């Protein structure tokens, strides 16, 4: 049970952003009505359009398709980036050899890979998964590597002093020390992944939220559905970030966020 005080605190935090959002919706509504726009929808038309898609099920299919691509690409990127980042952080030679390559690939926008993705993988599910992999793998490698580099020397010295085995050193010192940085990498990674999946789906697929937006425009100027799609993308992005932020509450990483 929440006490009255706790509810009051929550209201104080939630009310200002809600008020701003309400103001934006109000202005939007007034402007559309005043200008008598034939094509730009009112907020209510967006809501009814979204409900219509939700009722016939296509909305859920699109959301599911997008989340599946992000989930698969992001998971593959994690499986690749975390061990690689740990290795590059630990072994100086690996860092010197691979870091310049990754630093060069990193600033290339994942969108620039779309032509290559289509060439290599066609227009199925594999292309967007590949693009998500490409977009989220570099931030996770970089964060993990720098996490290893910034482990405080006194902890490594203590481990050396106690003469522990390599496996204990990794399991009980290196990995827990780097974990907060890995979580930061995951947050950045999932953010770009979500950004990219929508862009990738705009190109040539037949499902996903990106496809839904392009299709709504092309098939009859349904701008209500375009805007509904945008808002849903924003909300899901918020939820994905919130889910990765939950990892920061893990007891073994609390130390990084106190004091």
């Amino acid at each position, binding site marked *: 049970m929440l006490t009255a005080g706790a509810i009051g605190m929550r209201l104080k935090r939630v009310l200002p952003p809600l008020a701003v959002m309400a103001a934006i919706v109000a202005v939007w509504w007034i402007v559309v009505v005043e200008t008598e726009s034939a094509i730009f929808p009112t907020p209510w038309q967006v809501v009814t359009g979204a409900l219509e898609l939700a009722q016939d099920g296509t909305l859920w299919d699109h959301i599911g398709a997008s989340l599946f691509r992000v989930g698969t690409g992001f998971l593959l990127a994690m499986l690749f980036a975390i061990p690689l980042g740990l290795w590059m952080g630990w072994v100086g030679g690996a860092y010197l050899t691979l870091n310049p390559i990754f630093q060069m690939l990193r600033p290339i926008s994942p969108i620039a890979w779309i032509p290559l993705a289509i060439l290599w993988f066609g227009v199925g599910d594999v292309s967007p998964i590949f693009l998500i992999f490409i977009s989220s793998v570099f931030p996770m490698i970089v964060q993990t590597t720098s996490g290893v580099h910034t482990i405080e020397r*006194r902890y490594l*010295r203590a481990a*050396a*002093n*106690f003469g*522990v085995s390599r496996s*204990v050193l990794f399991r009980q010192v290196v990995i827990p020390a780097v974990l907060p940085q890995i979580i930061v990498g995951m947050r950045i990674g999932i953010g770009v992944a979500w950004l990219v999946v929508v862009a990738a789906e705009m190109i040539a697929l037949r499902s996903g939220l990106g496809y839904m937006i392009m299709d709504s425009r092309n098939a009859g100027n349904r701008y209500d559905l375009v805007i509904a799609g945008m808002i849903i993308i924003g909300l899901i992005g918020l939820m994905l970030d919130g889910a990765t932020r939950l990892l920061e509450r893990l*007891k*073994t990483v609390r*130390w990084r966020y106190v004091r």
Partner: protein
Amino acid sequence: MSVKIDVRNVTKSFTSDKGPLPVIGGVSFSVADGEFVAIVGPSGCGKSTLMNIIAGFERADAGTVTVEGAGTDRNGPSPKGIVISQHGSVFPWLTVQQNLMFGLNGDGHGNKALLADHYAAMVGLKGFETSYPHELSGGMLKRVELARALVVKPEILYMDEPFSALDALMNLRMRTELLRILDEERHTVLLITHDVEEAIYMADRIMVLSPRPTTIQTTFDVSLPHPRRLSSPAAQELREAILLELGLQVI
């Protein structure tokens, strides 16, 4: 008594922009088994470097360090001698109990959790076994570090300004605690400190180091019985003599 640590003609220089910077200029001494030796010296004189060499974290340019029982192939740190330093190295991501069990990974330690809890109780951490370090105060963290060292039954404790990051009151309390624990489990202790009173309160022998490149300037034997009263005339006299060696005239 047998010799535990033997340091012979150790020298060490660091390279700097202006050429080599001699830090240790030939230090020799030995520490007997079970002895408590304190090293005091002006700040920046190379005390910590000397301890790092003895504990195996750094190599001397010349000279030898022999630690009894560690063999001749002693090339690095070993759990036979555990370092406790000013800023501590308790792992913040492990609970108190997990920290204490950290060094117990070899075999032959029996029930690790039981052993860890025994030492936690010895340093006064009973009831905090499942706490994380960020939930503890500075003094309690020091106790965790001490217990984590004791649990692996080291023969030597290397203490580098162990209590100087604590507040004055906790500093005094930890001295007494340390002596009580050493009474239960006899360890050889090498203490580095800039706190002359801390050295007088605990050590059997105090060596005063000279400024860089450091050598042993004087050695004082402390034969006062425990528990020592720092206000006693003998302790005050010793304190003044040591401070004089460090270049401080006491009025």
